[in-house]
């Protein structure tokens, strides 16, 4: 498929340059690094995120008010080098400590763990939270082994608010971990995405078939079916999620319906209609539900549903407004 880039080697750098040139008052470049940070600095715990580009707005668009303080971008689907993350760490306010949040992929984990050691050597207190929301990648007992996907949007949002409230690093980490433990995602892929560098499909997906729990690079999922109706798809997604989370009537949740890029808002709203019906039927309390495209693997067909179980503490931080040019969450609640 036709992709609009100049040269594969430059695309992440140029994406960042474009973003910064369009929003120069809000963000600045981290020197010598494919990374950015908020211009508006304040004396509080900073959140640094990072990962491979290619799922925009994730990473670059997650730096903002009530969100992350800075970010390091790797090449498409490749974790950023530790050096880049360390440079961001040094560039942001770090006197109150730094919380690293990334998805639980080997490359990210290895780099962030290494950076944490290096930051400590440089006298910067830091912690890592690896988001593990994808229920299809390991059993509930092995939640720590699950990979991280769109749920990181909600974890960063909650943790970002906790930083803004002036909490200590330990407290922010505790809340981020609580958010992470309560966040689960399940997805369906309906057509392949395309590598921006080559325009090549990332995997093969026969027309009329779909796969649940598939990875963005075509890693096999856990259920392959014929394309069903939107209602059937919503039912399958919710069945797995409700099963995994064992939600009851006393539970209060936030729900994010996240489109993968190719799938349109028209389709996402039709899915959302059924999701809301299922939640109502199960009499689970919906604190908030919304539709957005916050974790989009390059023109892929499909969507994910993320559910975060809330307690009063998480709700407090969840409710704080978040804002970046590509991550807008101002109004909360039904």
């Amino acid at each position, binding site marked *: 498929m036709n992709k609009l880039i100049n040269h594969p080697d430059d695309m992440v750098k140029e994406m960042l340059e474009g973003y910064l040139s369009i929003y120069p008052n809000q963000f600045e470049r981290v020197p010598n690094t494919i990374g950015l940070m908020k211009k508006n600095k304040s004396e509080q715990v900073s959140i640094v995120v990072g990962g491979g580009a290619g799922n925009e707005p994730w990473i670059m668009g997650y730096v903002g008010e009530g969100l992350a303080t800075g970010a390091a971008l790797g*090449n498409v689907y*490749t974790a*950023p080098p*530790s*050096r880049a993350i360390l440079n961001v760490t040094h560039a942001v306010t770090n006197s109150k400590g730094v919380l690293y949040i990334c998805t639980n*992929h*080997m*490359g990210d984990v*290895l780099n962030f763990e290494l950076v944490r050691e290096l930051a400590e050597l440089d006298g910067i207190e830091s912690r890592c939270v690896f988001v593990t929301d994808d229920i299809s990648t390991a059993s509930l007992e092995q939640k720590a082994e699950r990979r991280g996907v769109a749920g990181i949007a909600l974890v960063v949002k909650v943790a970002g608010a906790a930083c803004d409230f002036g909490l200590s690093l330990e407290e922010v980490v505790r809340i981020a971990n609580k958010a992470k433990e309560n966040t689960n995602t399940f997805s369906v892929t309906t057509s392949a995405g395309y590598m921006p560098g080559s325009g090549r499909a990332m995997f093969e997906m026969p027309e009329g078939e779909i796969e649940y729990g598939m990875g963005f690079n075509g*890693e096999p999922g856990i259920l392959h079916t014929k394309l069903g109706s939107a209602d059937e798809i919503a039912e399958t997604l919710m069945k797995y999620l409700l099963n995994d989370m064992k939600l009851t009537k006393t539970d209060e949740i936030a729900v994010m319906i996240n489109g993968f890029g190719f799938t349109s808002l028209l389709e996402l709203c039709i899915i959302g209609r059924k999701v809301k019906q299922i939640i109502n039927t199960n009499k689970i309390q919906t604190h908030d539900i919304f539709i957005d495209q916050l974790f989009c693997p390059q023109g892929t067909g499909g969507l994910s549903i993320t559910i975060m179980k809330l307690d009063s503490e998480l709700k407090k931080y969840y409710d704080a407004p978040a804002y970046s040019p590509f991550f807008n969450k101002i109004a909360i609640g039904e």
Partner: protein
Amino acid sequence: MKNSMNAEQLKNMFLSVAQKIVDSEDFLTEIDIKIGDGDHGIGMSVGFRNVLKELPKCQFTGAEDVFKMVGTILLDTMGGASGVLFGTMFISGIIKRPVSEEMKLSDFAEVFRKSLNALQQRGKAHIGDKTMIDAFEPAVIGLEESVCNGLSLVDGLNVAAIKAKEGMEYTKQVVAKFGRAKSYGEKAIGLQDAGATSVWIIFQEIADWSTGNLS
């Protein structure tokens, strides 16, 4: 026939390794596409292209400094899992070692054993998990056995290359426990691991360069 390498020779050897990896980009990409995300070839080639660019500019006093520089370049420019892993492969083995003018076979064995340990501490992978460890650990054992058996530097390095290759072949027989390949389960059988392939290319070129330049 020389039975050790000085900094200058190590530098030339690593330049040769770097060129080999850069030349193998497409080969590594094809392997990683089948059970990974296809970026291993690009990542390795980015890292070692930087080695090709930066290493010639450096002046080294000790042998360890060459290892450290190669590892740092990889760590700073590659990204991905392999940036840390291959960075560790070259950096961690020389940490806290006194600077030496010449490296013997036993030094190679010591340095790579230490980095293997560091790598396993980071990545938590063991033999049979279908990772670069499957090639690296046998290569290190090969070096150690060669030391015990009193082999020459060149012969010992050739043993390491053979063992690395066997390890790489072995990854075809097992399912993955880490990374994107994990989700392929039994479907990964028959396919070789990309990182293990890179480890073999590195040890093979170390052996070939030594054979050509030290014998």
